[in-house]
């Protein structure tokens, strides 16, 4: 009989290309990073010497890192906002109305735009005499003239949130497309049945749409959580980490490529990875199927 062993072998054969790639570009770097985190890396010789958790002790006491980590975790605020908005927008553009394709395209454009180019545009939005200030002055929320000018990404009170808005603008189209795929998998009969039963739009959204796209919600929240914890690009191009927007990954990059302290950078990276894992586990518990 063709036993299950040969099936397993064939299965692995099919998995091999993906596994090899993941091994080289994901598993090995993670493993090597972990190894680096526990030692001092000498740039000249490439030797790593065990240092008794020195990097972790350093990070434990390092206020700048705590601060950066706090900013990264604060960045998680964007996750529910972006997910709910993306789902609602997906629901809206999922109607068979004229012009819907255009709307989908419009929402998706920021996703394709390069971060650095989009940042140039947004810098002019956020400049103290930029579009945002002008808009608020026009509707008389801010006083006219110099007194009403706010340097949106230069002021520590607002800067991080403004960077989040940028992330929101840039990411919403991406999650919208994923939700669209999820929504289109729902058969219209269910929706029709609910209408016959007299459910209103609100009830249909919460009782039918949300439960049925739950797998997509899990995927999207996971992706955007990881993206939020790893926020670096947006900060780099908009504020360079000034005005209290320094994030954990920015700290990692600085330690690696300004101090050339790869061991400490690896340790900090490992801490960030740890937080990603914890959050992923929580989300699987929360959105995942119980069975």
């Amino acid at each position, binding site marked *: 009989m063709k036993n299950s062993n040969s099936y397993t072998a064939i299965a692995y054969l099919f998995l091999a290309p993906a596994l090899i790639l993941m091994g080289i570009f994901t598993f090995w770097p993670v493993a090597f990073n972990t190894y680096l985190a526990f030692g001092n890396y000498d740039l000249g010789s490439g030797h790593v010497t065990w240092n008794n958790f020195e990097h972790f002790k350093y990070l434990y006491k*390092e206020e700048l890192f705590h601060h950066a980590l706090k900013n990264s975790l604060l960045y998680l605020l964007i996750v529910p906002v972006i997910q709910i908005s993306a789902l609602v927008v997906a629901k809206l553009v999922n109607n068979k109305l004229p012009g819907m394709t255009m709307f989908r395209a419009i929402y998706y454009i920021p996703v394709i735009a390069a971060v650095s180019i989009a940042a140039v545009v947004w810098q002019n939005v956020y400049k103290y005499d930029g579009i945002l200030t002008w808009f608020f002055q026009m509707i008389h929320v801010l006083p006219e003239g110099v007194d009403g000018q706010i*340097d949106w990404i230069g002021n520590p009170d607002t800067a991080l949130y403004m960077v989040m808005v940028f992330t929101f603008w840039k990411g919403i189209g991406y999650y919208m497309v994923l939700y669209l795929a999820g929504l289109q998998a729902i058969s219209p009969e269910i929706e029709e049945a609910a209408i016959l039963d007299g459910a209103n739009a609100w009830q249909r959204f919460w009782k039918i749409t949300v439960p049925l796209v739950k797998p997509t919600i899990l995927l999207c929240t996971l992706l955007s959580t990881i993206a939020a914890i790893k926020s670096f690009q947006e900060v780099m191009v908009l504020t360079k980490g000034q005005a209290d927007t320094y994030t954990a990954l920015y700290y990692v990059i600085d330690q690696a490529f300004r*101090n050339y302290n790869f061991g400490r950078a690896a340790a900090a990276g490992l801490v960030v990875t740890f937080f990603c894992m914890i959050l992923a586990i929580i989300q699987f518990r929360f959105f995942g199927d119980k069975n």
Partner: protein
Amino acid sequence: MGVLLSEEEIPSVLSITQEEDKMKLKKMLVVGAAVFAVAAQAQAAETLEFWTMNLAPKFEPFFKERVAKFNAANKDVEAKWVDMNWDQIQPKLVAAIAAGSPPALVNFNVPWVHEFAAQGNILPVEQYMGAAKNDYLPAALKDVTVKGQVYAFPFYNSVSIIAYNKDIFEKAGVKAAPKSFDELMTIGKQIKDKTGVAAFAPKLSNFTGMFYYAGLPMIEGGKAVFNGPKHVAFVQKFADAYKSGVIPKDAFKIEFEQEIALYNSGKIAMMTTAPQALKRTETDAKAIYGKTGVAAFPVGEGKMAFGAWLMDFVVPKGTKNPAAAAKLGLFLTNDESQVAFSKATETTFPSTKKGNLDPYFQTGANSADPVDQARAVAAKSMDNARTLTIPPGVLPDEAAMTKKLQDEVQNAIEGRKPVKAALDAAVAAWNEKLAK
């Protein structure tokens, strides 16, 4: 480790375009072929490989000519030029030293010289310089002196100037460009009050350089000391200027590019930056360019010209023939080579005494063209050109410490914290790290 170069510090002439990328590929093939050729050929002449950063392909003619001249005069050795990106040079050199086959010469900036000298990875070169040592500007030699030993051959340099908008000056009733830092601040206030235009955008993203420029020490006896009364007064000047609008609101975000853009659109009265910025004004803002006057950036209490960034050649440890390497180093940085290179870049300056006296620089003094003027003005400033950085290796956690300093200085200047309190906080954080 070394502070990252800002755009300004890599002269704009060295930027890489797509065209150059293509050239790079070609060059790689050429170099690749050359390597094979050398390997195949019997060891006729000893190869002296020298590395530069971001100078190909634009300055290929210059290096080709120099290499040919050197090789013709020295039959026993053969110089070979290799150019690479500035961020590759260090890792490649470290790898080459580790492998025991480093090149003869490497193009470095000042922080790297200090760092590699401290590690013992480059050789002192004073013994090879002989009388030629006196050809270099003393300030340039000081830049590359570590523990009393000269570790590099000074090559090209750059220095800040003041380019000012004559119209705005006239409206504000300012007669002449500032001669001192304090005057720069008073004139700034006058400009802001009379015209409403911000006066200038100082380089606040590297405040260490500012302290050095003002002649104020950062670290003494292993302790941070930048919260003294003089330091507080100095930062206070910026805080006052910021508050009264002499400095733009987003000054901490203004780098080389943004400063040029502000000046070109008439939003600041003075541009305090490297002379090559004027080239951009010439092409992008003809009207403003026509109204531009040029003056030297005032020498501060530190008796230093502002905005210098010296490039040099070092001899790596383990190079096979240090004497021959030094010979090539001296040749590439002699008066003739340096003037020729400055002519090729049009925006950099020699680090030799005679070099800066060359008619090429000095004739511009009476020219009507701002770029020519700037060249003359900057060449005169070269005597005081020092690269302003804390030598690498002094700070145990440079990235975090610099970050702390910048954050606190920003809080102080933007008025969120009293200056004294901000500097105290930064000093405390520095000392905690220095004590470890």
